[in-house]
């Protein structure tokens, strides 16, 4: 699946992905710095009715939000993590296997920690206001 995202349609794409990918609990976002990972995750949280402040978890590593339906949403950022051991110590593994929705930035830092049914989403820059998101669902 591939979607083109602009400022105008970001919430409708977010909504569609949340419907399409409902069975999958771990979403790994592969994209370079400045391509809009946090911004897109923000849009996903808006659609889910998260009222907590959605910010970048680069410093905090794991942010926890509550969606409108009461479910927990984890927003992870492994940017500062150096190895798998550190990720486990920080509680990343517990969260990834919790059964709650996990939106993960910089998953390439600990590739082996992810469950087999992780969805891979990559974001590419088309131009300064347009991004392309490619979704790879586990087979």
């Amino acid at each position, binding site marked *: 699946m591939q979607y083109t995202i602009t400022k105008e349609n970001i919430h409708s794409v977010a909504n569609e992905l949340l419907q399409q990918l409902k069975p999958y609990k771990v979403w790994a976002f592969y994209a370079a710095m400045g391509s809009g990972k946090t911004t897109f995750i*923000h849009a996903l949280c808006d659609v889910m009715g998260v009222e907590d402040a*959605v910010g*970048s978890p680069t410093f*905090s590593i794991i942010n*926890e939000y509550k969606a409108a339906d009461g479910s927990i949403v984890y927003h992870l950022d492994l940017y500062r993590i150096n190895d798998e051991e550190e990720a486990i110590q*920080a509680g990343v593994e517990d969260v990834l296997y919790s059964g709650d929705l996990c939106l993960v930035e910089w998953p390439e830092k600990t590739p082996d920690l992810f469950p087999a049914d992780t969805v891979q989403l990559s974001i590419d820059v088309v131009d*300064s206001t347009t991004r392309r998101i490619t979704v790879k669902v586990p087979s």
Partner: protein
Amino acid sequence: MITILAIESSCDETSASVCRDGRILSNVIATQAVHEQYGGVVPELASRAHMENIVPVVDKALKQAGVTMQELNAVAFTQAPGLIGSLLVGVQFAKSMALALDVPLIAVHHMQAHVLANLIPEENPSFPFLCLTVSGGHTQIVLCESATQMTVLGETIDDAAGEAFDKTAKLLGLPYPGGPLIDKYAQLGNPDRFHFPEPQIPELNFSFSGLKTSILYFLRNAGTSLVYKEEFLKTEEEQKQFIAENLNDICASIQQRIISILLNKLKKAVKETGVKQVCLAGGVSANSGLRKAFVAMGEKHHWKTFIPSFEYCTDNAGMIAITAYHKYLAGEFVSLAVQPSARAEW
């Protein structure tokens, strides 16, 4: 006489502090000094590090304060927000200690404590005051009406200010955390040389991710444009040369923009609330450019400005202790059933 022990373990630092009648007697933060004294290598980032640190850090805080455990009137801890595994260490330790000593337990919100760090120095603001809290993980403007009544007026919708510094530094090829290096080079550069856009974010909220993207393409295009277009992209060699030749001016221009984003919102908050006592808090308040611009803005607009000393700006238990002291006076205690929370809600 009210003597309180406070523990902070929400993220990377393990810290303990003793406070008596609102005066900080000790503020120990787990650093190499503690490791040297007690031996052993401690990973930088792990709840295990907190477990290894917490006993020596509390011990040192009590000794430095010249206080015995029997003299404590309450034990306080950071309840939220933070990494749950890290918070748990402090929470469990504080609970056990309060239970053993049969003294009340006080739960403190980490971000409220950053604001109340401004009450630690002898010359401190009276209520109400505004506080701009800037750190690696947070950017907030808080209206503080009393020690137990605070409102978040605005906060970041994406990256924190400290993160904007660190990630920009990474784009420039500087080591992590690069924020202090940007500050260092900025002092040697011309802040008006390059122009980065100021985001138009409604109300008192902040955004730094658009600025980060502008800087990314500015560097990829070796200073010729702020937007992504294939024909603008320069070779890696050209990008590196551009950075090397203009590093000071680039840092000065970026720093000036980050500071203006912060202070323009603060100015707006003062205008909207009419509150003219204004404080700075959080680790990014160590940035010399921000301090200078903050003080200058205060003089220009006749604000009374306050900045706590640096040891109370980064994550520390001193700020937890001062907050706990005011909660003690207000009778705000929690039961042993209290749980930590990763969520940032107030």
